[in-house]
């Protein structure tokens, strides 16, 4: 049998390995700096510290933000999961109606949602702040969830509507013929069929909300509901920045995301690639 491992294959693999190594460099630097003592921060940044300062993680965990990194992580999780849940439920329902009831009103509403994607939400930060304050929601989880549900809804509706339009209406019609009411049709038939796009919506909006710094800084300053990016920022001072603690905190903040990806990657990839199969 002919040997299929040629020089061409070898060089391709070699280039791929180099590219993979390049992507690991920031991670390596992240870990190295996170383990350095404060006095060595600006000398030989790429050299691993001896001995490594494992205590940096404990300091970052306890001293970040108002209530430590654990508290910030909990806040980020509540705000992200809460917002994503509302986005998925309301976005899918709204898009189903927009996609299945074509007409002037639904077209206009759809365009309105698209405008929401185009316009940067920072433009509306002052009215949003005034509105949330009037509702007594500034500095609360409910306020942040409401804010993000509104801000990310255009993207969710855009993604869901495109997907529903591609979905053959036969499934819904079959369910209606089978005697299911509107709610049952949506819950038992339509929503499960939206699984691939629900994964996309959850990841895209969830990452944006999890990583957000600006809105959290504006709406959650001075409360113990600070999110991870704001808590990490507390190590950045006006004159001195404790980069080793910042990096240690970033490493800790990465852990749940990486863990989630490792646990859910198979389902996520299946969801993205699966589409609809009758």
């Amino acid at each position, binding site marked *: 049998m002919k040997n299929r491992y040629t020089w061409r294959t070898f060089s391709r693999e070699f280039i791929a390995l180099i590219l993979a190594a390049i992507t690991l460099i920031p991670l390596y630097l992240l870990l190295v700096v996170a383990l350095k003592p404060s006095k060595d921060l600006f000398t030989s940044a790429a050299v691993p510290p001896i001995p490594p300062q494992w205590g940096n993680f404990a300091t970052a965990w306890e001293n970040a933000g108002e209530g430590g990194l654990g508290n910030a992580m909990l806040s980020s999780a509540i705000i992200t999961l809460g917002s994503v849940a509302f986005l998925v439920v309301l976005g899918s329902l709204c898009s189903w109606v927009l996609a299945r009831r074509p007409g002037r009103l639904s077209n206009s509403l759809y365009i309105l949602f698209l405008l929401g994607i185009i316009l940067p939400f920072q433009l509306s930060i002052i009215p949003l702040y005034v509105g949330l304050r009037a509702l007594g929601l500034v500095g609360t989880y409910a306020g942040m969830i409401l804010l993000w549900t509104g801000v990310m809804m255009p993207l969710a509706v855009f993604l869901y509507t495109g997907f529903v339009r591609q979905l053959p209406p036969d499934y819904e*019609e079959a*369910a209606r*013929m*089978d005697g299911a009411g509107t709610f049952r049709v949506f819950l038992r038939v339509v929503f499960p*069929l939206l699984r691939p796009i629900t994964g996309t919506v959850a990841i895209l909006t969830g990452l944006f909300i999890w990583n957000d710094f600006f809105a959290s800084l504006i709406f959650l300053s001075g409360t113990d509901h600070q999110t991870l990016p704001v808590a990490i920022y507390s190590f950045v001072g006006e004159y001195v920045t404790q980069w080793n603690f910042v990096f240690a905190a970033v490493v800790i903040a990465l852990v749940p995301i990486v863990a989630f990806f490792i646990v859910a990657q198979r389902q996520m990839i299946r969801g993205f690639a699966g589409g609809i199969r*009758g």
Partner: protein
Amino acid sequence: MASITLANVGKIYRGGNRAVEDLSLDIADGEFMVFVGPSGCGKTTALRMVAGLEDISEGTISIGDRVVNEVDPGKRDIAMVFQNYALYPHMSIFENMAFPLRARRVPKAEVRDKVERTAKLLGLTEFLPRKPRTLSGGQRQRVAMGRAIVREPQAFLMDEPLSNLDAKLRVQMRSEISNLQAELGVTTIYVTHDQVEAMTMGSRIAVMRKGVLQQQGDPQHVYERPVNMFVAAFIGSPGMNFFQACLRSDATGYSLELPGQTVPLPDDVVRERPALAGYVDRDLAVGLRPEHLTVASTGGPTMAGRVIRSEMLGAERLVHVSIEARPVLTDEVVEAAADVDPTTVAALADDSDERQVTLIVRASPSAHVESGAALQVGIVAPQLHFFDLESGDGIVA
């Protein structure tokens, strides 16, 4: 079980596009009615109006004694089998079949019992735990049938349920569906564009074109007595042969005049169709089914032609014979021909240029014909069909 009545039913879409016009049909309890016609003829729209999936713009639809125009699809007590089966991909076969029962809040034990009984009837028991994507086309089709049967509806609606299957499986499923329908005795409306399916399955067929019902009746009647050129061209495979001729009358009787030859008509032909007398010295369309033409003389009238080729199909031989005549290229014939095979339209156009018409003769497999040879094509005169060239209507009475 129940009868279904469509009374002057019409469908006008937004923008004024009319899909169905003045459709009136009585479908008896337990009857197998087939709506047949080319794409866009309104048959699926009519079915969907019965299902409740399309609003009814005009007229009324009744199931049993109840007018259902404003009744939700789920409350009409009818089941539908979709063209692509519409099996819920995320549910097992059991869940798929149980869905209509659960939607009606049937007790759990009864759901299990009914689903298992239906699965057994259809040979699906071993597939119950599996997902639809793991099943073959035929098995999925059977599951779709099962989902329709399981709740014992008053009527079945089937929207081209066999069109996604390969030819062999289609023939098998055709008889399975027919047998099942006969066994259950449930009123059924079946939509297809395949006239063979319609002829073999329906206890009655309704031929539609451009939203208008052309003819309805039992398949044999529609085949033998088409009311117009469209029905004549659409029903039958191979389709009816058409050519133009001028009807002449003299002391010896009636005859058809074609370029270069005259075909005498037996007196009976005109006697049975008195309206023909009004067409003397006028052009009309003549139609003949392939089995009503012969390659050997039968003592009746004949036409001179030339064999182009012959196709041996095992049980029969199709002989293509070219005769000198003007082809019939009305909209009806072209539309019916295009639905069967779009390439035949180009062939018809070629005939038009050359003033030649190709007739297909259904002959016995042992018939000896040679390509290029001259042939006197025999005509089974009582089976001649005549149509008005302008209106396309049959000249019958």
